[in-house]
């Protein structure tokens, strides 16, 4: 094996850090939007809201049943051809939209399972004191379901951070896109891609810390 160009690798770091905020921005906006959408979808499924329930089933089936890359291409290259108002959509927006819809479909199913897992008698207790379905969801069921679903949802967040790298296929210069450009001009592909791999890895590990802290907090109410 030839020697690694360590200096080049270290020199890449500042370049990468410059594009890190965009990656994090896409992932965090996508995550928050996906969480909100997934919660709504899950509640629709659990309460079996007429009409919406059927639409939700189709939505989840489509976004789980097709590759994220296909969905991104569809939003960015495809839809503007048939819907002219979408021509203004830029690569970043298309990525956030794609990540949101794609991951919300997965997360909706996790949240639904967690909701169903909350002790049914608490639902009855909430109804018995006169709460509406939405009140009992918001105040009693969702906070408890969040605790159950949290580890799975964090996994999806990790997955989402890594999936932002697909934005580069829409011409967005984010972490992966920037690395690709550097590699193409220096021809040091191994150095470039191992560095970007390390950056993603460190980011995900940092997140695991947050996850452990969060789970501890969410479990506070359940310690004897």
């Amino acid at each position, binding site marked *: 094996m030839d020697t690694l160009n360590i200096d080049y690798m270290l020199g890449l770091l500042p370049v990468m850090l410059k594009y890190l905020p965009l990656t994090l921005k896409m992932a965090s906006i996508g995550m928050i939007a996906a969480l909100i959408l997934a919660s709504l979808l899950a509640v629709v499924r659990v309460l079996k809201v007429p009409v919406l329930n059927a639409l939700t089933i189709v939505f989840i089936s489509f976004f789980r049943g097709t590759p994220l890359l296909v969905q991104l291409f569809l939003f960015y290259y495809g839809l503007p051809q048939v819907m002219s108002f979408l021509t203004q959509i830029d690569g970043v927006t298309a990525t956030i939209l794609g990540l949101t819809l794609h991951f919300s479909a997965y997360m909706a199913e996790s949240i639904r399972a967690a909701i169903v897992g909350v002790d049914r008698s608490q639902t009855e207790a909430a*109804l018995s004191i*006169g709460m509406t379905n939405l009140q009992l969801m918001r105040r009693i069921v969702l906070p408890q379901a969040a605790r159950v679903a949290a580890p799975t949802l964090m996994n999806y967040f990790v997955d989402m951070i890594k999936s932002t790298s697909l934005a580069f296929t829409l011409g967005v210069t984010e972490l992966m896109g920037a690395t690709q450009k550097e590699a193409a001009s220096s021809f040091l592909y191994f150095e470039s891609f191992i560095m970007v791999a390390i950056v993603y890895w460190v980011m995900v590990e940092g997140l695991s810390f947050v996850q452990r802290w969060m789970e501890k907090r969410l479990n506070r109410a*359940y*310690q004897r």
Partner: protein
Amino acid sequence: MIAVRKLVKKFDGNAVLDGITLEVEQGEIIVVIGPSGTGKSTLLRCINFLEQPDGGEVQIGDVRVDATRASRAEILALRRNSAFVFQNYALFANKTALENIAEGLIVVNGWPKAKAHQRAREILERIGMSEKADAYPAALSGGQQQRIGIGRAMAAQAEVILFDEPTSALDPEWVDEVLELMKQLAVERQTMIVVTHEMQFARDVADRVIFMEGGRIVEQGPPSQLFSAPKDDRTRAFLRKVLNEVPPQCAAGI
């Protein structure tokens, strides 16, 4: 006043409630007894529509609901006029003892948090649970959880509190503290309908005891009459069976 008229509930075609009619005066303490599976719990659960009855009518205070065309708003109004104490406590696991009691006041009655917590503290004091205000249900004993469950029902200031076998899931050591609290409520003339197997409680506290079997009210009357001179053979058979299971010194108190 609470009135139940010709209440019917069927599960898979079997009538679990077969036309129950019952009137309860304000401040009256009703205890419902009877063999397992005769619809006692179903009766309570139909009164506040946790189970949707198939026919009949329920009235609590000024809210009167026909089972066959009950609207969502009517059911909500009915539930806000009643409170329920569950066999397995059913406390909100994500809320402290204090929050469990205050929750309905905040969410349902729209009270400001500070006022609701103030009231919850008063109730905790009355049920002797002040030190446990900030404890979560998982950290409480069964008896303590059920007292909070009763506290939550008290907070609603409902026309009636429905007790569904409130001591059946408790270890024997916790039963008395829950029954004591219920007695205290009875002394304060809180209207209540209690489904229980605690015959001594029925004898000591009830204004009227109702014996149910096969989805019907077989016999009812003041405990002095129903326990000492039951009129119906089925009541006699049931009482003989359950009273033989309790220690003789209790049975002798009839």
